[in-house]
């Protein structure tokens, strides 16, 4: 019996003075830090995170990549990449590429100058990133009015 108590005391002391690292299985492991990064090239921009996420917190604007702080802090204005990761249709992003806050820039984004709207003909305007890729599209009021008129009755 005494032997058992001695053994228990030794084990207890060992546990108490054991480095915390060695007790990793018993302690709460801090969640890995979620780091977002951006990459832009001729085909556009993309973001990824260190946890293999799905792009939920990633936004890409006409000025290049903007990244939200993890996990859900809002950082940016007009979204081009849809929240489910799918494509936002070009005509869904046309009107409001106006910043409404201070974005958190990625650690190593491509340094894109803010692109301007350019007229592309037939009442369409586009925004390109600095590589020339069209990332947003809009319409002149006249062209929009014509489309509205065409939309009143459709026979498909």
């Amino acid at each position, binding site marked *: 019996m005494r032997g058992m108590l001695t053994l228990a005391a030794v084990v207890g002391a060992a546990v108490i003075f054991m480095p915390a690292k060695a007790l990793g299985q018993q302690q709460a492991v801090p969640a890995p830090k979620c780091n977002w990064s951006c990459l832009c090239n001729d085909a556009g921009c993309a973001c990824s995170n260190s946890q293999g996420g799905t792009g939920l917190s990633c936004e890409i604007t006409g000025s290049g990549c903007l990244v939200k702080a993890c996990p859900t802090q809002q950082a940016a204005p007009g979204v081009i990449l849809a929240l*489910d990761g799918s494509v936002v249709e070009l005509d869904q992003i046309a009107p409001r590429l106006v910043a409404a806050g201070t974005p958190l820039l990625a650690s190593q984004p491509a340094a894109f100058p803010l692109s301007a709207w350019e007229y592309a003909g037939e009442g369409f305007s586009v925004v390109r990133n600095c590589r020339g890729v069209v990332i947003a599209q809009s319409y002149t009021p006249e062209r929009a009015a014509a489309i*509205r008129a065409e939309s009143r009755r459709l026979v498909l």
Partner: protein
Amino acid sequence: MRTRLPVKLLAVTVVVAWAWGRGAPATAQVRTTALRQPGAGGPRIVLNEQFRVGSADGANDAFARVVDVVFDGRGRIVIADDLNHQLSVFDASGRFLRRVGRQGAGPGEFQTPWVLAVDRRDSLFVWDAGQGRVSVFDPEYRFVRDFGVRPQWLVTSLRFLPDGRLLVAAYGRNEPGVLHLVERDGRVVRTYGPSFRSQQLGGFEASLLGGSIALGEQTLAYSNKSPYQLEFYDAAGNLRSRCTGDPGWTTPVTAVVRRTAQAQQLQWNRYVHASRILYVGGGRFLNVVVDPVANRRTLDLVTSDCRLLRRTVLPVPLTPTDRSGSRLVAVQNLEYPQVIVYDMRITP
């Protein structure tokens, strides 16, 4: 005779509700059929605009981005504007009624209202992509409660079954399927439908998966984003038919995402995909394919036996989102977003 009709309707409803909730999905092999090309003629869809809402700077209808629009049982129109973090409600004639929610994490507040669904009693369910939860509002749009869904879900469609339970289309890593039968408190009853080998897909590739669902009288249709594929299930969740579209009609997911040493690169502006499926009555479904390269939408009128009745390229930018009776609602984003309500007729 007049008094028997409600009884009959009730009986039909009960039977349908019972049937929708019964049984486990069958695992039997179902033959995959290519959509048959439409012959000459075929039905035509005629859309006559009733009204539209949306303006550049109006007090009540200056939307930032419309991501979903649904009708409720009273004909009201609920519009989700994710960039304004709120919903807007209009009556059946287009008169503004009220806003619902505001930006925040509190009860009834939204970060990113993304997908809407209205049940038979006009309760409104809203999936908030930014907070991974569903908020529930009563028919007068008072906040009732919210519940979480599985955090890995990327919800792309919500529909109510006749028995009041939810059918959710959501891709989730390691989920065995993309269709989830969910109780009204968020508990998952079962998962079925197409699955993806997610181990081979990461990040954006996985997030491009998922699709849209529509309920016919006795048929559930699931439209996969890409590749073009339709699956039709009966009321018990048994797969009855699978229809594939033209090869190359949509962009393969693996061609949309390219891996590099630094990141996964989403070539978003090349992603041709099916964005929405609607039931339009008479056993026919409308499958909407979006081509962002050409800024073009194609409407396919299809049946559950894989007949392609008509394929039409819309002459104007327009994305249908919901249908109720003879009314169809669509989103048109030009220099500012508008929501258009049409009277819809399908000619023989």
